[in-house]
């Protein structure tokens, strides 16, 4: 059963459709990259997928239940969050721990598992030793990391990341791809990532979903290429 399914979705802005014929399916536990040239509404596609936008036409369905039996948990790492720049007062630890705030847990005390998962997420992105610093003091790349950590701390069923490797140096990128691969292989989570550098990441991927522009100028989805076994590993 597909975790995410989009059927004949149409969407646009100001009455002009920018996405048409969007048909795709993503299965549980897959590591999927979404790609396409700049301006190809990739972010819009992600937002439609997560239910932040309602399509003009077509159907979008998300699995209603997550792995633990509870509601499907989505960890979203957007491209930029402006709140970082406006002096939001918070320590990194507090910030990542907020990933654990789910609807059922608003009032109960933070338990051992919460702290454990927070610590794990922070260590996985290499920010544990800086956990008491204010988030406003961080560099751009570090801000990215803690956003990823916050999504990880949630123990998400679906991880959605929008160009997470922008500005990352080479070693960090590969470390990141490894981390994402672990998410799917060890934890059975689904990872959907908008990215550009396909050559680097395709050895890790299960599938590539590509947006292409048709003759009439609108973006269509999606050439879906399966990656398993089709590329030779290009790891360093």
């Amino acid at each position, binding site marked *: 059963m597909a975790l995410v399914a989009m059927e004949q979705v149409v969407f646009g802005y100001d009455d002009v459709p920018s996405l048409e014929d969007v048909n795709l399916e993503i299965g549980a536990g897959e590591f999927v990259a979404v790609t396409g040239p700049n301006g190809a509404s990739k972010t819009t596609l992600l937002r439609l997928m997560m239910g*932040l936008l309602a399509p003009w036409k077509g159907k979008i369905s998300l699995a209603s239940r997550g792995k633990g039996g509870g509601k499907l948990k*989505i960890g979203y790492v957007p491209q930029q969050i402006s709140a970082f720049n406006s002096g*939001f007062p918070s320590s990194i630890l507090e910030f990542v721990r907020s990933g654990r705030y789910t609807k059922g847990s*608003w009032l109960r005390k933070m338990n051992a598992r919460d702290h*454990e998962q927070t610590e794990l997420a922070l260590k996985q992105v*290499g*920010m544990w030793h800086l956990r008491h610093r204010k988030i406003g003091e961080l560099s751009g790349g570090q801000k990215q990391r803690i956003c990823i950590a916050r999504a990880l701390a949630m123990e998400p069923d679906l991880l959605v990341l929008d160009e997470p490797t922008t500005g990352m140096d080479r070693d960090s990128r590969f470390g990141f791809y490894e981390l994402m691969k*672990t998410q799917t292989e060890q934890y059975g989570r689904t990872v959907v990532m908008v990215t550009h550098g396909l050559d680097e990441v395709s050895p890790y991927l299960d599938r590539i979903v590509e947006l292409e522009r048709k003759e009439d100028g609108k973006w269509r989805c999606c050439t879906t290429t399966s990656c398993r076994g089709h590329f030779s590993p290009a790891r360093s």
Partner: protein
Amino acid sequence: MEMLHYDFMQRAFLAGALIALVASALGVYLMLRRQALMADMLSHVSLAGIAAGAYLHWNPTLTGFAIAIVGAVAVEYVRRSYKTYSEISVAIIMVGGLSSAVIIMNLNQSVNKSFSSYLFGSVVAVNRTELILMLAVSVLAALFFILMRRPLYQMTFDEDTAKTSGLPVNWLSLAFSVVTGMIVAAAMPIVGVLLVSSLVVLPAALAIRLASSFSMAIVFSMAFGLGGVWSGLSASYAFSTPPGATIALILLAILLVGIGLKKGALRAAKRKSRLGQNVAAAEEAPYEAARFSSTARVADKGGVARMKSYLAKAALAALAVSMALAGCGQGGAKKGDANAGTDAGAQRKLQVAASFYPMYEFASQVAGGLAEVTLMVPGGVEPHDWEPTPKDMALLSKADVFVYNGIVESWAGQAISSAGRGDRVDVEASAGFETDVPGGEQAPDGKPAGADPHVWLSPALAQREVERIRDGLSKADPAHAADFEANAEAYIAKLRQLDAEFRTALGPAKRKTFVTQHAAFGYLAREYGLTQLPISGLSPDQEPTPAQMASVVKEIQSLGISTIFFRGAGRPEGRGDDRERDRREDGRARSDRRSDEGR
């Protein structure tokens, strides 16, 4: 602490504390949501609601409340649907609210609460209803902020990721707006428009800069807000300054000093790093995909302990500042006490508080030397623009008799109930006289005028006010009733003589119409068969509409009038016989002019 012996000060401290805590916490969220102007805007909207309520004879507090909530919800919807217009929507609603409020208040022709009292409120004259409402709203707000603190954190940081984590952001945002509206609407009648904004913005601005965690930001903000309000109240008591403005200035001072200290600390840290000392590298470690064994402690004890110590320090600081300033207040009060009942053992003189100059004059005449009459509104100040300071409230609390005209002292009702004292005699000198609308009052647009309070300017009616005051003084001090009777009789005789002079002078006057700056002489005009043509309405700060101006100018031209009379309210030495002299001079000037022109 002498200051806190007074009922009204206790209420002020309690109301102030509630508002400070709730508004400062709210402020942190509003600042981070980039909605700093929200409180200001909602206060103005609430003002329109209150004005509408008064005009429609509904409960103004409730209408103000309802409109503030509607305004908050409206802004929320605009913000959601038209992201580009969200800042403009605040300006639109604020201008709309304030202008509507002024126009609606103008429709109420009677002399009502002055505008400036809405700016800074009357925290030393909180009545029970306002206090109970504020208490209820505070409890509700506290429940909301405590129970919803985690989702509020997520939503305040970023709404999109909050939504995808399963948070019902739309509902929460709406609830937040409603709570904001309620807090502002409940606080505004107590502390006024400007102070509500100050409490929402200033403590939060400093707290956000200083705090290293979100919870600490809220705690700091509440500490600064509470410290500011209590210090402000204490300072206002000590130095006899208007409480609202004093609090606002202290909050501002706290912000500026805090920012200065923080800058200083940063500079010191930079100096240290330049010397190569002690700067931990802020470099991240590599991504690590391996699964770690859990070394986590059950709770991050360090952070919690740190926060608790900050909380304690902040509370102590707030308390210390308040006590220091209250100590000043005590010194000041002692001086005042020494002036009051001086002779130990000798009979204490009757203490009379009089609202503004005419009341002071009447009361002093009736009392002779047998009472200590104190003037509350200083000469040269419009009585209904004036706001009592804590010292004035203290005076009122200790007075045996309070003499006021009624209506013109917009603060009197609140002050009387707040400075509650069972055995004080409150004399509303003009009660019952002003219910009929004097025929002299011109309302060119035929709108019904409200009750005219200018009873003391008519020699005939003034006599009845003096009688009322005599009765009040006698009730409070029966032993001297005979003396008061005699003094009153003597003064009334003078007034009768003045009345006779007016009649003889004005009787033969050919022109019966006179122009005044505002409709102060309605009763006098009616008494002597004259026609008053006022430029403004019953209150000197009611601006004439263009139509009213045009009509007055037309009358003046058609009648050939060349003199406009205005009350010298701006005289610095408004004591002594000036008032009587003014009245006599006005009368003589009129009669002189008329006899000269002989028309």
